[in-house]
Each structure stands twice: as structure tokens, then as C-alpha cells.
């Protein structure tokens, strides 16, 4: 140990990667429904929290319980996502703001039901014992469970990209954002597309909630925190681009870790200041992007 020069920034940088990937996993469902399908689902955090509470209730430190928690959490969040879709059906033609009103209502009500069911305290989450420790990385200790996320997130990013870009379902979703009526004239019900998207987004959020539970929540605040971070990442990522979202998530991760380590006194301002500046610069860029090359 003593032979290694103590570099206080190695771990934050590494952690930034893991944290960023975790944020990506948490945001994946929102990328799909908001970024790709244009449905503003403010209940996304709630769907994540459903997964988280499931994990807390089911996990007992064994591998089997992880599988069970994943199955139950995904199923519950998928159902909740589909429910949101059904509620949204009547206001489908209205704009984002009406969607926001409705889904925000769902998030508020659902959140308080969750707390009523599971209590106001953060419940303990028990990770499989093999993952519940730390490993040595470049002479520093690092939480093993967080390393898992590097794998999960990479797989998810590739999978999502392929589904959205390469499959007929992905194309339908993108087409329906543009012109739902024309999708209908191709013989596909836009309502079905919408339910499918929200259910899939729910499944992703549920899975993220279960897997992320040992790190983020569950607790009364989880839903809000996840929603806000996800929104930031999805919008920063350019709405709907998987690569963009992944990069944005990694950047947010670094800001939250390396940035904080480098400039602790600026920490409270870092995330939002960076976000505002990046978005503003990009908006400026877009405005002039009509300049053909």
C-alpha cells in the first residue's frame, strides 16, 4: 500500500464512471419513453422506486432472491408503466405540459402510497454476500457492487440502441412521435405503441430500481432524485440518442465525483451550472446548425 503514491483522484474518477453508468441505467426507461417516444413521464422515478422497494422486500443476501426480486420488480413496474399509459390515453393529443400534469399527479399519489405501504424509513437492502464488499483497484478500495454496473450499463446501452435503431418496434415508436395518425394508416394502433413503450420503460425502470437499490434508495426521496437526474441526463444526451445519453450520464458522474473532489467548495453549483452552460451552448450551436457545412 505504502508503495503506491496516494492519488486522491483515482477513486473519484473511477467512481465517476460507475456512478455515471448507474445514472444511465436509472435513466434508461426515461430515454425510451421521453427521449425516443416523446412521452413526458414524470412517474419514471416512481417506477424506479417500485423496483427499489421490491428489492428491499425480497432480497435476503442470496443469489436466488436477486433473481426473484428482479422478476417481481420488473413485473410490478411494467404493470405500473402500462397503467400510466392507460391513464395517458385520453390526453394523448395534448401537449407535454398536460402529460406532465397527469404523470406528476401519478407520481405524487403513487409515491405516498408506496410510503404508506413500506413506511417512511429507508428500508435496508441486502446484496448477495459475494458482492457486498470492496475490491482493490489500483491500490484503492472500491465497492464491488458498483463495479457490476459497468457491465449492466454497457449491455443495456447496446441493447437499447439496437432495439430503437434496428427493430421494427423501435421504428414504430419513433414514427409515432412524428405522426401517430400516419402510423395508424400503416395498420398499427398508436395506442398500442404507447402502451408498449411505457410498459417497456417501466420494465427498464423496475430492473434499474432492483439493481440500483443497494446504491440509490429506496426511500421517500428516491423517486424525485432519480427523476431529476434522469431528466437531466436524457435532455443533456440530446433526447433519444443512446450514445448521447450514455456520454451525458458519464459526464454527470464525473461532475458529481471528480468535480466535487477537485473543487469541493463549488460542489453545490457544479451540476446545474454545468448543465445550464452545456445546454445553452448546444442550443446556440443548434440555432446555427442550419448553416450547411
Amino acid at each position, binding site marked *: 500500500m505504502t508503495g503506491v503514491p496516494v492519488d486522491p483522484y483515482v477513486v473519484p474518477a473511477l467512481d465517476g464512471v460507475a456512478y455515471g453508468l448507474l445514472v444511465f441505467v436509472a435513466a434508461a426507461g426515461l430515454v425510451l419513453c421521453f427521449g425516443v417516444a416523446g412521452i413526458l413521464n414524470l412517474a419514471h422515478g416512481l417506477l424506479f422506486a417500485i423496483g427499489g422497494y421490491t428489492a428491499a422486500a425480497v432480497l435476503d443476501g442470496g443469489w436466488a432472491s436477486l433473481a426473484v426480486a428482479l422478476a417481481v420488480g420488473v413485473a410490478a413496474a411494467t404493470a405500473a408503466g402500462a397503467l400510466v399509459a392507460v391513464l395517458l390515453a385520453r390526453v394523448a393529443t395534448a401537449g407535454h405540459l398536460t402529460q406532465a400534469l397527469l404523470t406528476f399527479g401519478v407520481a405524487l399519489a403513487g409515491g405516498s402510497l408506496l410510503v404508506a405501504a413500506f413506511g417512511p424509513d429507508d428500508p435496508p437492502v441486502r446484496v448477495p454476500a459475494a458482492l457486498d464488499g470492496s475490491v482493490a483497484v489500483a491500490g484503492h478500495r472500491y465497492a464491488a457492487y458498483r463495479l457490476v454496473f459497468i457491465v449492466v450499463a454497457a449491455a443495456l446501452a447496446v441493447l437499447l440502441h439496437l432495439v430503437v435503431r434496428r427493430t421494427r418496434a423501435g421504428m414504430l415508436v419513433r414514427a409515432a412521435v412524428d405522426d401517430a395518425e400516419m402510423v395508424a394508416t400503416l395498420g398499427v394502433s398508436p395506442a398500442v405503441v404507447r402502451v408498449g413503450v411505457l410498459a417497456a420503460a417501466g420494465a427498464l425502470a423496475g430492473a434499474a430500481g432492483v439493481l440500483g437499490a443497494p446504491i440509490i434508495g429506496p426511500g421517500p426521496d428516491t423517486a424525485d432524485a432519480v427523476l431529476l437526474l434522469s431528466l437531466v441526463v436524457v435532455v443533456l444526451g440530446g433526447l433519444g440518442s443512446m450514445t448521447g445519453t450514455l456520454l451525458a450520464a458519464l459526464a454527470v458522474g464525473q461532475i458529481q465525483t471528480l468535480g466535487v473532489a477537485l473543487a469541493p467548495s463549488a460542489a*453545490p453549483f457544479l451540476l*446545474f451550472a454545468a448543465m445550464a452552460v452545456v445546454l445553452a451552448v448546444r442550443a446556440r450551436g443548434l440555432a446555427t446548425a442550419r448553416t450547411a457545412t
Partner: protein
Amino acid sequence: MRGRAVRVLRPAVGAAVLAGLVAAPWSVDDYTVALLARTLALGLVAVGVALLTGVAGLPTLGQTAPYAAGAYAGAVAGGRLSDVGPVQLLVAAVAGAALAVVALPLVLRARGVVLLMITLAVGELAVVLAGRWTSVTGGTDGLAGIAPIRPLWGLPVLATDRSRYLYTLLVVAVLTGLVLLVLRTRAGLLLRAGRDDEARLRASGHRVPAQVAGVHVAAGAIAGAAGSLLVTAQQYVSPADFGFDTSALLLLGVVVGGTASVGGALVGAVLVVAARDWLFGALPGQAPLVLGVAFVVAAYLLPTARSARPAPRRSTPTARPADAPRPAAMTGVRP
């Protein structure tokens, strides 16, 4: 037909609401009056939000920033400059407008969701700043015991809930009326046109950036004035008044009020905020549940919910000018 009914009903509803508000202090208890005064201040912020979001199509979650600037400026002016209300109002409005000017480089080019997130960030930064600039703002604990104002030079200070409420109501009514008047001029027309299709507006020779900057600053000034009213009404101010939940609630109130209608936004925001405040007292612990269900129901009852017009789309900068927004008339209607 629905539209016609709304048009006929709107002035009637407006008059009824105004009459109710004027009569309120004599018909309800002090608690409700104090609550209403605070709520009216927020309603005035909502007017600015509606101006930006509904009329000009520039959705915002950041009006809490000029609102906070106005509140602290008003409080400081109250302590160091004058206890006359309109003086504080003016200082606060200038502070709000100044904050909007500072934020302009960030918001000028952005539209849609991106603008929403930028303004969210601006609002959050303002709250963080308010929490840390302890010498002026009193930190996260806030400034308490702010002296009451007098409505004009030579008049007695407003010592009761009722008098503070009536002052607030008067100011809100005057400023809202002013906004409504201005919107009837070409400014309103141009803002609405910009919401529909900005590129086309440029192509007609209008200076769109100046217009966008103007409406941001105007909304900032309104929010600033509202901040001063908040201080007058509750004689206390802390960063908690300007959190994300306030912005979200305001935006939802504006949506409930009908997005593009400034008067509706005022009423909608007042309703939503009053409902929340009242629920926290009346149904301890259950308020979020009831409020959430209320939002869902409101989304269903909104007239916009079933209208055929898709949300006003700003032509995305990447879209070719030739692909100006599709004729809404062509998207069939399912009544």
C-alpha cells in the same frame, strides 16, 4: 361549441373570482386570509410563467429565480431603504428583471424541453445561492421578522392580515391587468406568432431574439414584484419558498389554468397552491396523495386535453424551413 362556451364563461368566471377575492377578508378567518395573500403572490409569478410558457411558448421552471431575487431585494430594501410598499415593489421588480438579464445568455437560444431544463438549473442555482449568501439572505433559515410595509408615504403600516391581503390583491390585480393590456397590443400578437413558428416570424422581418429577451425580462420583473409581495404577505422569506416544488407547482397551476390564458394561470396557480396549503393543514400526511389524484383528475378535465391541436410546435432548428409545421387542419379530428 365548447370554445364558444369557454369564451362566454371566461369573463363571467373572472368577475366572480375577483368579486370573491375582494370579499374574502370579510367572510373568512384570518388564517385563510393570510394564506390567500401568500398564494396571490405566487399567482402573480404564475402570470409571468404563463406569459413565457403559454403565450410565448417558452416553457420555464426557473421563474423562482427572479422571484427569489425580488423577495430578498424587497426585504433588504425594506430594512435599509424605505418601508413604503411601492418602493420595495419597484426595487424587487428591478432585481427580478436584472436577474433575468443575467440569465439571458443561457436562455436566449434554447427552446422546448431544453429551455425547461436550463431554467430549472437557473432556479436551482438561485436557491443554492440564496442558501449560502448568509449575510444577505439569512441562509437556509431565512430572514424572519421583516417589518410590515406602509402602502404609501404617510399612511399607517399594514399590521393586520386583512390589510396586507388587500394590498397584495390590489397590486396583483393592477399588474395582471397591465399584462393583459399589453398582450392586446401587437406585443401579444407577435409573442403568439413566435410560439407558432419562429422561423416564419424571422422571415417576415421581425427581430425574434429581441422579442424573446423582452418577454424573459418582463416575466422576470413580474416575478420580482411578486417576490416583494411574498415578503409583505408572510414577513418571512427563506430559500424553501423558491425550491423546485414551487416551480413545478406553478407550472402545473398554469397548465390547469389553460396555459395560454394569463388570467387562467393566475386562477389556476392560486387554486393549486391554495389546495396544497390547505391540504397540508387539513389532511396531515395525506396531502400528496390527494393532490396527486387531483392533478390526474385536472388533466382529464382540462379543455386542452381533448382539443385536436397538437401542442404548439416550435419548428425544430434542425428541420428545414420548407418543412414548416404541418397544417394542423390536416390532422383529422376525432371529436
